[in-house]
């Protein structure tokens, strides 16, 4: 790299344009290339809410943000250093994301009168020309014109030529950050293997974009972000939903249980259904049910039959499943209930993220109906957390809630994936004919974990009936006896509490064991909190961070751990839910810090809050 490059420890780019501009593909390509180079990366796509919003409008803007660095990266970035906009609407929708003095690369063709009008700029106003962007470093490119010039004589039609525009931009961005074109060229060759003319055109345009940087003697400051010192190993890129799907398959393989998914399409959980449907060669059985209720009840039927049964949904769908979750609690059958949370209540904000279903997961049922609740913290952690949810469901004969959210589902990060052989075992305990020896089989007899054995149809001598009515202890017969009911309610609760014996103690993610401030987080706020705490520690503040994965039951030491700090701050993307549970359970003066905007915390806003308490 040339000497005049600016050296940065990290950089954040936001690509934005119409959904037809190939923004997601451009982002994906840059991500893999820069990860291959050795940066740590974190990405987040931003799809328009409408499937086919009109071209050029604000509603149709699609975005892709990537943060990469020579240090560890935990979030896709609060705000960007470089904003790449293909049209006026993309600029309007995303300018607030750009850092003061940041760089803008704008495709001038997207700022013609028609596009300006669609983006609702006042008549005669063009932000590229009126000086309103003077506080930023603005670079305009006529991408369309240059792409056309590049492909002149290629024999391709205007439409095909137009589709390669994003490669010009990508090539130019590669030049700015001095990345090689190799990976993208291989990708193009594979993707369009059957259309050599298209491969050639795309590669030509990609190279043209790169060379444009060199030959135009730019004005532009190149940026150098060196490779990060990350743990050696083999990495892949992973999003939260595929990580969840793979985690379920891994649990199925390791436990030797067939995987059954009962699901009904809902944003942002559907991709788990899609992913699992692709992997039937793992014996995965996916059932797209007629509604959310059938999705979970079919899973309960499969669980009764001995499958590792799962249902996936998001908030409104979970609400519909509520009664059936209660049934699964009474049946004491293994079942994993996945909630990829989105903004609520009701239909709420389907494409936005939120953590507002925690109380629903912990308490949202009729009767005394506790069940374990586990939350993932990063896209790749969805794999481990859902695997753990399966383990608990199977080994403790209980339905388990697994919480993810829209931010984790669609966000991506590099993952040093494990080897199958290194995954912990999951052991199902089935009742056998021996359990019926000496008389009658007792379906609700428990082991030391208070779990009951899994008695599946087909085993002679274990014929028994289960159901939603209150059970008599051990026999499982219907019982309306007052003492038995109280006993059973407490027994079921104790069974869930006992899971704390098998889960790890709460550890600190960062910071001193005693101090002024402890941040207790859960779920997808992990990256922002981690980044903010790291910075505050570097600045000398007394702050620590604990991120809770097991929310019900909590790790046994959580209460003790919290006592070592003057203040406890609980940041959540909701109106204060974990904070209530912590206060209720431990009588600690925990304080909430809440954001309910459908978007994640920035580490900046967390940092600002931390330094007022630490």
């Amino acid at each position, binding site marked *: 790299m040339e000497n005049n490059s600016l050296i940065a420890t990290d950089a954040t780019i936001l690509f934005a344009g119409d959904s037809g501009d190939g923004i997601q593909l451009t982002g994906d390509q840059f991500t893999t290339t820069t990860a291959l180079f050795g940066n740590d990366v974190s990405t987040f796509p931003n799809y328009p809410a409408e499937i086919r919003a009109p071209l050029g409008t604000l509603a149709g803007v699609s975005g892709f943000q990537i943060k990469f660095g020579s240090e560890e990266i935990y979030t896709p970035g609060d705000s960007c250093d470089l904003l790449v906009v293909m049209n006026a609407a993309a600029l309007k929708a995303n300018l607030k994301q750009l850092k003061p003095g940041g760089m803008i690369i704008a495709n001038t063709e997207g700022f013609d009168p028609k596009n300006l009008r669609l983006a609702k700029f006042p008549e005669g106003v063009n932000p590229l020309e009126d000086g309103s962007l003077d506080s930023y470093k603005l670079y305009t490119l006529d991408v369309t014109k240059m792409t056309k010039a590049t492909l002149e004589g290629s024999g391709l039609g205007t439409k095909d030529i137009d589709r390669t525009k994003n490669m010009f931009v990508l090539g130019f961005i590669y030049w700015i950050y001095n990345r090689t074109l190799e990976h993208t060229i291989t990708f193009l060759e594979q993707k369009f293997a059957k259309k050599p003319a298209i491969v050639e055109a795309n590669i030509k345009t990609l190279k043209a974009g790169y060379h444009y940087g060199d030959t135009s003697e730019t004005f532009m400051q190149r940026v150098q972000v060196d490779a990060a010192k990350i743990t050696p190993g083999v990495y892949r890129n992973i999003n939260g939903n595929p990580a969840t799907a793979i985690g379920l*398959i891994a649990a199925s393989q390791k436990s030797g249980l067939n995987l059954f998914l009962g699901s009904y399409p809902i944003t942002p959980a559907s991709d788990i259904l899609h992913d699992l449907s692709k992997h039937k060669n793992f014996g995965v059985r996916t059932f797209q049910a007629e509604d959310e209720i059938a999705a979970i*009840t079919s899973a309960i*039927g499969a*669980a009764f039959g001995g499958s590792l049964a799962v249902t996936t949904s998001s908030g409104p769908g979970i609400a519909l499943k509520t009664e059936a979750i209660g049934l699964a609690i009474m*049946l004491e059958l293994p079942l994993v209930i996945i909630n990829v949370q989105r903004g609520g209540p009701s239909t709420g904000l389907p494409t936005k993220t939120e953590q507002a279903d925690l109380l629903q997961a912990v308490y949202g049922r009729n009767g005394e109906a506790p069940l374990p609740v586990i939350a993932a913290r990063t896209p790749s952690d969805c794999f481990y957390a859902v695997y753990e949810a399966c383990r608990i469901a199977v080994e403790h004969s209980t339905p388990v809630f697994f919480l993810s959210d829209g931010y984790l589902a669609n966000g991506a990060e590099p993952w040093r994936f494990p080897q199958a052989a290194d995954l912990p075992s999951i052991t199902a305990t089935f009742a056998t004919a021996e359990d019926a020896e000496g008389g009658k089989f007792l379906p609700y007899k428990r082991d030391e974990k208070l779990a009951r054995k899994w008695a599946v149809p087909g085993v002679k001598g274990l014929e028994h009936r289960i159901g939603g009515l209150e059970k008599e202890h051990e026999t499982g017969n219907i019982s309306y006896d007052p003492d038995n009911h109280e006993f059973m309610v407490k027994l079921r609760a104790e069974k869930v509490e006992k899971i704390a014996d098998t889960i790890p103690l709460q550890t600190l993610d960062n910071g001193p064991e005693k101090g002024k401030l402890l941040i207790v987080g859960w779920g997808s706020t992990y990256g922002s909190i981690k980044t903010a705490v790291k910075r505050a520690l570097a600045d000398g503040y007394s702050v620590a961070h604990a991120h809770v994965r097991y929310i019900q039951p909590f790790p046994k030491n959580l209460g003790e751990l919290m006592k070592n700090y003057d203040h406890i701050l609980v940041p959540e993307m909701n109106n204060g839910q974990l904070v209530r549970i912590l206060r209720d359970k431990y009588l600690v003066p925990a304080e909430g810090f809440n954001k309910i905007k459908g978007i994640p915390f920035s580490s900046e806003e967390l940092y600002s809050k931390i330094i007022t308490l630490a």
Partner: protein
Amino acid sequence: MSTLSPDIAPETFTSKDLVTDQDIRWCPGCGDYSILKQVQTVLPELGLKREEIVFISGIGCSSRFPYYMETYGMHSIHGRATAIASGLKATRPELSVWIITGDGDSMSIGGNHFIHLLRRNFDVNILLFNNEIYGLTKGQYSPTSELGKVTKSTPMGSVDHPFNPLALVMGADGTFVARSMDRDPIHMRTILKRAHAHKGTSLVEIYQNCNVFNDGAFEVFTEKASKAEATMMVENGQPLIFGAQKDKGILLDGFTPRVVSLNDVSANDLWIHDESNRAKANLLVRFFDDATIEGHFPRPFGVFYSEQRFTYEQAFNQQIEDVIASKGAGDLDKLLRGPSVWEVKG
């Protein structure tokens, strides 16, 4: 499910083995007792292993049924037995799955799962205990109660047009459609055996008297005095004949059925019942007149329609076998690795 002929099937258990130690909680005189008895009588004759039989019910009086059957069973939640059975049968196709449901359970709160089970054609048996009332909640009108029904929740009479359950089943492309009644044990046993033998979803509507909240709802069909005139027992390949003197029949005049006297028309010219004829079955299930109206059609009983169509669980599991045969069983390490990786060197 086995299609063994009942005559040659070895009995591995007896009716007595199917009785549980639970006290039966139905009201004395309830039609449910007869149905329980017939099921317990028929099951040992089907060549099944007791441990492979599963009864799944929803909520309602009839849904207590599994507690009285010494087989595997689940008394689930209101309306969902069909969906639970779907998941069980999809993953355990070898089991003999019986769904016990009522008119409220299957057609009100569980209407959606009911129709979807039928269209998917899982190889299960549904016994729909139709008593045209909500019994367990002590007497509100149901979706099959007649118009104008006076109940606790409809003191001025119901204004709901009732469902014709079998027309609904035909509409959902059910592949086995039959009707029987609690007061005709022999008929019921025949139909139960046919239902078991059918590969696909077998729907048996059973008229069941709730002697506490809707006594006599089906009296005209079940009582000796009126039964012969008010009902018609259909048999495959046989002309549609009814009446105490067997002197009336149904003639199909284009698409219009007519009641005729056998004095005027020869039996050979009558509508000959053909279980495989969907169009005719659609007409037959529409024989649903109010039995008190002059000139009404007789209410038919028997197997109205039977069609061979692939079952859901066959196709569902076949896809898995096919993909494993073509791609090989999944390799977890490959899956973990994904489509592209890079190495960070130490």
